[in-house]
């Protein structure tokens, strides 16, 4: 069995009143902790390492010309289990479809990553950003402009 770090004070000993040795042991233990490096992560300055597969905020990817890759097929909206995605397609004659409106409600989203998997064009993907705050619920409904710039700030 692995040696336990807990200092055991037997009941018998405590009754006899010989708690000098355990106290000295405890003092030694705390002093050894004093010279160890703290385990705290200084959050805003440093962050813990996230998994490669961490799923955070959405991002709409752009092609080489800087246009949205999205063709507004609606697969992501269809597969989304929490119905967080709503989009309105728009098509001009002889040109590719693109979304006129594309809103992801980040408060509804459960970050399952299905939209990313369903997308045939690789247009939507999840970033690693998890620490996002805002003042009202409305601000969490990310529109195209916001989704374009996620993680590119």
């Amino acid at each position, binding site marked *: 069995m692995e040696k336990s770090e807990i200092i055991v004070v037997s009941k018998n000993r405590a009754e006899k*009143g010989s708690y000098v040795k355990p*106290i000295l042991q*405890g*003092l030694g*233990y*705390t*002093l050894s*902790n*004093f010279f*160890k490096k*703290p*385990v*705290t992560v*200084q959050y805003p300055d440093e962050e813990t390492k996230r998994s490669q597969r961490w799923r955070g905020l959405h991002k709409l990817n752009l092609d080489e010309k800087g246009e949205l890759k999205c063709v507004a097929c609606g697969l992501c909206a269809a597969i989304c289990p929490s119905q967080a995605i709503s989009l309105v397609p728009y098509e001009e004659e002889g040109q590719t479809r693109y979304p006129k409106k594309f809103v992801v409600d980040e408060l509804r989203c459960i970050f399952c990553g299905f939209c990313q998997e369903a997308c045939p064009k690789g247009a939507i993907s999840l970033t690693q950003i998890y620490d996002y705050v805002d003042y009202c619920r409305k601000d969490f409904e990310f529109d195209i402009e916001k989704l374009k710039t996620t993680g590119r700030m």
Partner: protein
Amino acid sequence: MGDLFIIPVIKLLVIFGVCLGFITYTTWLERKALGHFQLRYGPMRVGFHGLLQPIADGVKNIFKEEVVPENADKAVFILAPIISISMAVILLAVIPFGDPITIFGKKITLYIANPSIGILFILAFASIGSYGTILGGWSSGNKYGYMGGLRASAMILSYELSMAFAVISIIMVSGSFSLVDMVAAQHSVWNIVREPVAFVVFFISGIAELNRIPFDMPEAESELCCGYNIEYSSMKFALFFLAEYTHMFVFASLVTTLFLGGWHGPLLPGVVWFFLKTFLIIFLCIWIRATIPRLRYDKIMKLEWKFLLPVAIANVIVTGLVMAIFV
């Protein structure tokens, strides 16, 4: 004129300024050291490694709203922190910080006053200071505060005894009530060597007098929410807090003066030695706080009446016998 008035005033300002600065930074040290004992950092945000934290705390406390509870005894409620802090700060007056120094051809002693009953002065005013705690708890009109005050009075009543007996043996060894003479008597051998038992008794009962963990009965968080200062807010709370830390500083400097040879030490000047030893004792207090959990109330009383007091009295008798036979 200069000798009578200007030098004492300058001395007052310097000593109180330095000591209160030291005390304020004790709060920082405590938070920082406690953090490191528990593998945390402690304050890190305000200034380099939180060095400006005490100032930030002070500013925050001044601007907090002051609440006086409806069923509090208002006069006593306001008086209690004043008693606490003033009786604590008065103690700084008789502590000898170092050898007399000579500036501009004038010999300046590094204490404000040297009454011939210095140690009695400290014991007496420390006890009056505990009135602040008791009255504060009683006047809040809060049962937790009341319980805290009761416990404070019980603790101070009992632990004052063993503390005084430990001090008596030191008085016997050094043959004087004056703190300056006590330090002078330790020129060759420190009292901790002559009186190790008294040191242990004095240290334990001192921590109990300070109401610090493991004897923090008057402010036992888990039982009494916060204890005697539960209804206090804003600067009144800060005064209690400051008084506690002033008592801690005075206790540490008393241990230094009585047992660790005061300002005596090789190489470095006396004042540096004094503050170094005081710092070490304060660190020891924090270290103990980080290690030992709070004792149960009846065990605290048992420790005092069944162990510390008999040991202290026996120590006085043995000291007297040894002095009668060998000296």
